[in-house]
């Protein structure tokens, strides 16, 4: 009866509908849209704060994004835990370093994949804060509210992603 709960994958429509209902709950119970990238800015702020408290107090950005472990921060800890629970209970949890698609195109060197992931992460982190949100905050929470900025952002995410992926892996449709 509970087999579906432990199956490795659910249809994307079911998962999407679930995220939609989750968005209702965050608005209703927390008066906030679902978002993910703010937690990373808060983490950066907490690290800065651990190094120099005065420095953080003088930085205007951390007056907007307060470096505290609040709702927006615990959500990302929850996502790590949720990913683990889903993978572990369906028997798909496995340590991995180089994804198959990356290995096929660029080789299975772990250090190289980590260097690329770090560079990509830094770029993404700058872009997410620059645009004021990520795939979750703009791409789902903002678009469903009909935010003009979020629809423009989502289109730019895809444009930038398609261009970069095509340059890395080649455009199959050309």
């Amino acid at each position, binding site marked *: 009866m509970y087999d579906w709960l432990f199956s490795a994958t*659910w249809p994307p429509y*079911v*998962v*999407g509908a679930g*995220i*939609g*209902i*989750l968005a209702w*709950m*965050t*608005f*209703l119970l*927390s008066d906030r849209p*679902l978002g993910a990238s703010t937690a990373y800015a808060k983490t950066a*702020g907490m690290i800065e704060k651990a190094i120099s408290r005065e420095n953080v107090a003088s930085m*205007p950005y951390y007056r907007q994004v307060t470096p505290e472990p*609040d*709702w927006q*921060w*615990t*959500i*990302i800890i*929850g*996502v790590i835990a*949720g990913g*683990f629970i*889903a993978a572990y209970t369906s028997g798909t949890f496995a*340590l*991995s*370093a180089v994804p198959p*698609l*990356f290995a096929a195109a660029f080789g299975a060197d772990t250090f190289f994949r980590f260097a690329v*992931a770090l560079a*990509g992460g*830094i*770029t*993404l*982190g*700058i*872009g*997410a*804060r*620059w*645009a*004021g949100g*990520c795939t*979750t905050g703009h791409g789902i*929470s903002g678009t469903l*509210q*009909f*935010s*003009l900025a979020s629809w*423009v952002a*989502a289109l*730019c*995410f895809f444009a*930038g992603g398609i261009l*970069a*992926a095509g340059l*890395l892996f080649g455009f199959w449709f050309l």
Partner: protein
Amino acid sequence: MPFDGIRQNRTLQVLLGLAFGIIFGFLLQKGGVTLYDVMVGQFLLTDFSVLKVMLSAILVGMAGIHAMNAAGLVRLHVRAGSIGSTVIGGLIYGAGFAVLGYCPATAAGASGSGALDAAVGMAGIVIGAGIFARLYPVLERSVLNRGKFPAETIPQLLGVSPVPVACAVAIMILIILALLATMGL
């Protein structure tokens, strides 16, 4: 507003954030969208799982949020964007996303399911956010406010209520999902 007692309880909110995060991570993992190959496959236009998840979430999410907003149960949280902020930042984000192969939420979900490269990516996102915070005063003066958008929401831009926009978005989403299904993507 109703639920203000819950919304203002800081300890409860921290726990709710954790609970919402667990559900979110669980769903992302079940949807397969925490996989690098699936995420990059979306940008290579060979795997449309990411788009299917996003469009289904928008379809279901918007119905509830706008109904609850009309009933006075929730308020919207939208911010105005600009070309300097939204477009430039969005393009940088998209490029970084394709190189990393995970977004901030799916990197966390993938880390939880054992993808070590996603954990390295998470460290990168923190560094990137930290770099942006340091550049923020300069960017705020020079780029971020360039070309401000004329409205916060699409209904405001068009001068209509959210209802016709919701109908149009719903039809658009259903057509895209039906097309993807018929094309076998």
